[in-house]
């Protein structure tokens, strides 16, 4: 069975899951054309 430490890790991991890093967190600030992610239609090119 999972020990106390593992259960603590699961709890912390679950909390962190709700504010995951975003790719822009590792990128320079873009003043002119920042990322503005939003849902786009599935038939639009994504890549």
């Amino acid at each position, binding site marked *: 069975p*999972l020990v106390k430490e593992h259960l603590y*890790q*699961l709890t*912390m991991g679950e*909390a*962190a899951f709700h*504010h995951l890093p975003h790719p822009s*967190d590792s990128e320079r*600030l873009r003043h002119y054309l920042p990322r503005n992610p939003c849902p786009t239609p599935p038939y639009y090119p994504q890549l």
Partner: protein
Amino acid sequence: IDDPPGLHEKTEYLLREWVNMYHSPAAGRDSTKAFSAFVQQMHQQGILKTDDLITRFFRLCTEMCVDLCYRALSEQTHSPTLIRAKCFHTLDAFVRLIALLVKHSGDNANTVTKINLLNKVLGIVAGVLLQDHEVRQTEFQQLPYHRIFIMLFIELNAPEHILENINFQVLTAFCNTFHILRPAKAPGFAYAWLELISHRVFIGRMLALTPQQKGWGMYAQLLIDLFKFLSPFLRNAELNKPTHFLYKGTLRVLLVLLHDFPEFLCDYHYAFCDVISPNCIQMRNLILSAFPRNMRLPDPFTPNLKVDMLSDIQHPPRILSNFANMIQPPSFKKDLDSYLKTRSPVTFLSDLRSSLQSNEPGSRYNIPLMNALVLYAGTQAIQHIHTKGLTPSMSTIAHSSHMDIFQNLAVDLDTEGRYLFLTAIANQLRYPNSHTHYFSCTLLYLFAEANTEAIQEQITRVLLERLIVNRPHPWGLLITFIELIKNPQFKFWNHEFVHCAPEIEKLFESVARSCM
């Protein structure tokens, strides 16, 4: 504790000043003009007088940057983009200050001062993170720390002469810090941590650009940290959504490594398999499927493939783990070496089982010891056969002290121990090399010579479970299984366990069809 009176206010003033100077058009190229003026201010405020003051200054700056981020993140009305812009406005300035102080610490030739300062700052940020993690618990936010680490790493890997001179020490400093902050120690930082160690600049530096593969060992340690963290949850198949997400992210990173740096996975496969839970079959297969890029693997489905004739099976793979040292205690290693050399005393074999057992909670066997024993005995066997001018085959591997050990383990262990033992053997079935060939022969020999059907059933089980998962599949696994089902010597299809249930029959037929 006990910051000197007024230091907090001085630090706040200086940090604010620096942020303004950093963002001003008058900052100059790479903020150098601003930096020269700012260092004067730091001197005037007495910040650079003592090591203690410098340390406190950095700690307070880090805490202020972190506090600012928490305040920004709590503002519900703003968009995520705006919140991040607000946080990064200060964080990026702070990172630039650190980078400049490191670059200009001591004179140009003095790398020690620079690295000492970097280690100090990284240690401070890590310390603040761990304290924050402990205090805030589920309210902990990774953003400020993630930003500081990645932007500082990118800054310190700019193509500048001063930085190129200290690059390996910079990489070492970051790897040490990431090891301190590994997921087991800061699980709330785990996602940011994986993002950091899989960042394209980090991977590039650690695995591609650093000469003579000097970064490989440190990177392997970080992956081991990750696998160790995941292992208890994967072992228990405890895949709640967050853990499943982390596991999937890990698979993505491994796929990148398999594609771009297969030799890295080859060299460290042993260390990785030691910490990956036995039921993580696909992840393990991914690592075991790696082969050197200059190698052309013969198609395992080639009819009448003569594996014995491949030149690659003469050559041992590189294994950058000291598995011999993992055979503990030293007295056991001594007895093992003695038995391998002299095939005595016979009591060594009867005592083997108890030597492999473990009192660790949740683990009846010492898996790392089992793996080390198997690989050590196998490599010694290969050496022994080569010294006789022979190559491993079903006949040359038999009737030796090495095979005594393997046969004894196959017979004497209970089903769990046998499963772990056979898993250790199957972990060596990789690309064409002397280990793959030897251990393939060993598995087939154990099957042919088994005195109970249970042994044959478990050999089949260990191979089958690796074949029924989605790709990739290691070359050595495929050729071993194909040999087992095709070679009439093994009478594979005559065994009851192949036909015991319709689903099992269908499963074998399906796998055999895809193999043949």
